[in-house]
């Protein structure tokens, strides 16, 4: 019981860290109560259009332009915007720089495939735009480091697009931060595995798709329709696979629950068939997060005094969580509302770039361990793999010309 008190105390004290954040840069317009945030939307596939619909519900937002390399995607997006505003004003573009270089755009939404996220985010932030970027926010660890640096340099609001960390897993977070399972020691994240090589047979690119622009910084390969229809996730050039796709939600939930969302693991243990049965992240305070396993669905937590899963306890009971306040979304309307609020107030959003980068880093490290089939030692301060120069090579990849960060 002494242990219980001590751990609980430590946990509450830890929770104080990062509970409040100073504002970032404030724009000249300062967004008065009646002023609208002009947004440009880049990447208008299924996810992008879904998010566009969400943002269109905010009276504080005015969507000015939409952009996609697939003509049909961008036309559907324009129709949505024009229908909403009752006019034909929404502009359409194929090149994202037509949006990021405009002075009348305050913020951009990025819903492209993962391999574009860093290039567009950094380009937009360098030009004074705030950014809402769908998860996985990065394709490599170095991309996240650069995005963080640029966001801080210009005081930009950057919100990653993982609505699940709070939206889906907040019951667990309230239970944990309320001390119901004692000090959390382990978490299991049940998401898909890493991406791999792409070997799709070439198909002639249709005339309404700018294939080279879709590839952007990724290595050249011939067109294949699967890739533009959301089927790019299994392939390493464009994504980290299930590890970064749902992983950026669920590792995010695990890290937030363990209050480790602004640091990283010190060891990534590759399964050895003996003591290490599944990929295991070990943190400096001894907390372990496993890829796979657990009984609680997509996410399971085990503390010194109990266990919980996505759907409640082991018997599926979901007791009312303790009345504990955990800083989460600001404003109204979930993660979109959080971003809109922060663009106006210049506060850090819930999925600030640092949290997004740290979360994605966990997923990327897992991928590197899987790809190289060995354990890694990670220095979360220097952000480098300390025991394996070969593994360090995987922190970044050279982009296809002319793209760079």
């Amino acid at each position: 019981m002494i242990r219980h008190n001590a751990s609980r105390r430590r946990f509450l004290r830890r929770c104080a860290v990062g509970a409040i954040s100073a504002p970032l840069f404030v724009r000249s317009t300062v967004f008065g109560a009646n002023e609208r945030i002009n947004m440009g939307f880049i990447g208008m596939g299924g996810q992008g259009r879904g998010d566009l619909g969400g943002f269109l519900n905010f009276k504080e937002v005015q969507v000015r332009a939409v952009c996609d390399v697939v003509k049909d995607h961008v036309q559907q997006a324009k129709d949505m915007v024009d229908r909403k505003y009752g006019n034909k004003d929404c502009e359409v573009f194929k090149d994202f720089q037509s949006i990021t270089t405009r002075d009348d755009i305050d913020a951009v939404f990025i819903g492209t495939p993962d391999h574009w996220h860093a290039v567009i985010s950094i380009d937009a932030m360098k030009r004074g735009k705030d950014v809402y970027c769908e998860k996985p926010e990065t394709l490599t660890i170095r991309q996240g480091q650069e995005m963080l640096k640029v966001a801080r340099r210009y005081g930009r609001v950057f919100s990653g697009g993982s609505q699940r960390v709070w939206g889906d897993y907040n019951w667990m977070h309230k239970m944990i931060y309320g001390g119901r399972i004692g000090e959390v020691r382990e978490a299991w994240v049940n998401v898909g595995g890493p991406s791999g090589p792409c070997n799709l047979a070439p198909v002639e690119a249709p005339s309404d798709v700018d294939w080279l622009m879709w590839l952007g910084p990724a290595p050249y390969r011939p067109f294949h329709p699967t890739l533009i229809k959301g089927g790019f996730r299994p392939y390493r050039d464009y994504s980290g696979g299930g590890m970064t796709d749902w992983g950026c939600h669920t590792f995010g939930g695990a890290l937030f629950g363990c209050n480790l969302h602004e640091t990283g693991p010190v060891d990534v243990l590759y399964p050895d068939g003996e003591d290490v049965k599944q990929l295991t992240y070990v943190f400096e305070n001894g907390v372990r997060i496993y890829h796979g396993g657990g009984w609680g669905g997509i996410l399971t937590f085990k503390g010194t005094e109990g266990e919980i899963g996505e759907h409640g306890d082991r018997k599926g009971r979901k007791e009312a969580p303790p009345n504990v306040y955990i800083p989460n979304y600001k404003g109204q309307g979930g993660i979109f509302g959080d971003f809109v609020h922060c663009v106006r107030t210049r506060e850090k959003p819930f999925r600030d770039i640092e949290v997004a980068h740290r979360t994605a880093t966990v997923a990327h490290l897992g991928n590197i361990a899987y790809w190289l089939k060995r354990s890694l030692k990670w220095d979360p301060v220097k952000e480098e793999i300390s025991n394996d120069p070969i593994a360090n090579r995987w922190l970044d990849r050279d982009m296809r010309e002319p793209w760079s960060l």
Partner: protein
Amino acid sequence: MIRYLWLLIVVVILAVAPQGWAIEAKKWSDAIQTLADYEQGDSKGVDLKWVEDQLGEVSGDSHLREWAEIVVIKGLVDAKTDEARKFMCRLLFTIGTNKCIPQLVYMLDSPILSHMARYAMGRIGGQEAGQALVQALKGPQGPIRAGYINTLVHINYRPAIPHIRKLMDDRFPSVVIAAVRALGHFAGDYSVQALREKREGAEADLQAEIDDALLQCAEEAVKRGEKESAEAIYESLYADAYPEHVQYAALRGLAITRGEGAVALLEKVATGDNVTLRRNAIGLLAMVKGAEAPQALMALASKATSDTCEVIVRTLAETGAPSAAPALIRMLDSEHENVSRAAIEALGAVGSPLGIPPLAKRAASGPEAAIARAALIRISGPEIPKALLDGARSGPVEQRVEIIKALGERAMEGAFDPLIEMARMDPVSDIRREAIQSLAWMSDVYQAHSLLALLVSPKESDDRPSIGRALVMIFNKSNNTRAKSEAVLLVYGKSPVEAQAIMLDLLNRAPTASAYYAVVQATESENETLVDAAIRSLGQWPNPEPAHYLLFLAREGDNNTHRVLALRGYIRMAGMMEHSAWAYQQALNVAERPDDIRAVLGGLGNDDSREALDMALEYAAKEDYANEGWRAVIQILEKYCWQDAAKARSLLEKIVAEGPNDGLRKDARSILNKMEQWKGNVYSWKASGPWQIPDVQDGGRVFQTVFPPEKSLTETSGKWRPLKARIEGNGRLDLQDTFGAIDNCCVYLATTVLSDQKQEAHIRLEADDHIKGWLNGQPISGNTVWLEKGANRLLLKVGDNGGEWNFLCRLTGPNDTPLEGVSFDRGM
């Protein structure tokens, strides 16, 4: 000739490759050769993922890596298609060294292959790669050249700087942008000068790139400790001619480089004409260490509008300066919700004792109560503990209640004695009860004696239920039954009846022999309240020890209430007893009222024996008990079906056809489906364990240790209990659900396989983490076993390292066909 030379090298290296990898090595090098004709979508039968997986493994061993690089270089030389060459570059990305640079250099000029050559070279780095890329800068023009620059940046090849500077005037914008970014990366005075020169007359897009590069140069100067150089860059960019976000970046840089020396500038900007920078200056004051910044912020707050005020509040919180508390307290009463809410959070962050009363007031009521409570829990600082205790002792009651609540949540050191005092003496009942609740949160079993003393002599007798609940919370946190029992029994005899009644309830959470004796004694008390409490306590005993005594009381008790209480307790016990069916039969013998009989039938459903099934069927046939009887039949069949599938199936099919209602028919059908789904799995077990070794945290070692059930492989000596485990989605039985989240342990599972003939069977054992088994005393090795005619004893041992713990035992005929004439009896 060269081809043969390569082959010779490969053969030689294969010969020296470590044994164990050699076969895969051969297969791998063959795959690389096969891939010479690779085209997207046609990998010539080679699994690309396998090739990469093998390479990943190889890359951890310098000897094998060297070997693999030679194979890949050969693959690159032999490649007949661009896709093959690009794939080889992907492999060299991981394992390439200077050895492969000459082959990669050939590809640099090719618009199709250049990127993938850089893809590998960018990871290899070093002088050879740098020189090759610098040389390439003189080659083809256009975006391909931008690629060379980008890779020179990645490998941080500083000798390239003069070459790159020349390209700032290239006719291709992408090359110019790459050169600008590169100079920003390499930084230094040389780069700064070049960038400044280039900015004059540049287009707006390029100016944005140059500004960013200059800011990078400044950041690098800060890192190198060259603050003056950095400051000079920031000062030059902090001018009206630059976009506002660049001015912000420069102002931020000045705040970093000048420290407290920047406060005057930031204050001036914060009251200046430029609205953007005015507010930004406020945020940047949080970055400045020292006392001056908070003072400046407080001065600004006094004349700020509501939006600005919120920014100031959050900035003050970021500084963590307790001196900001008076200003923050004033802002709590702001008419603007955003400001008052921010002030509450900020007070929790700055850690001044002055913040405690206003936070407590807001925690007590109003829409911001939850945030204020969180702030009270979070607030920290050297003066905070004393201030919290002072606030808990005096002030408005509702505020004291909130502070006491926070003390419990914080489990604050030094708060125990003051809280006990409040719980004992405070004249206000709300305060006493909150103090008691907080004590429950923060106390351990060794501190329970203070609460027990309070239970004996509370300020008011109405406090006792709260104290009892608090003690239950504390007892539930500890497994130390002896400490709990001794703490209660020490004061039990000298306590008033009201306290004793609560203590009797506590004793079933501390089930020692002494505790049991004390509770049994209380059943003979002349005081009805005590007898009542004692029987209830026995009914909640965590093991079946009181069962026979409860049965006796149910039969011979003095009054009807006690008899009913005892019977209900006994029914609960019956489910825990070894021969539970017999126990339920005893309960039925004693039960007189229809409600009592129904209660027994309700418990009977937990059993899974043939006897229980017969009993339930008997009552199902009686009109008055048909509902409860059939419900028990279904519940029993849900478990019994794994013992005697044939009998269960015949009964279930009968219920499906003729069952008295839709619900039962549906349940019966569901059980039949489950039987079909898991046909062949053995789910009827008794268990012994979990077995552990004190202080041993090695599940493998525990599993290797021989515990008593393993010493006699044909006898089921020792303590066994029926295994009532949940079937997981994969058909395995969840042991963690049954035994709790115990790590580094093992359990023994036994059952008797009754076979009507000698027959060959196929057995499959799986477990998370360890499993082994014995059939009729012989270790099970392989998948084939022989069942003797009659009884066959099957014993399993399942170990756990940690995390999930489950197992599967599947017994079928050869070729996974169902076994004929087999049933299971776990023999409880």
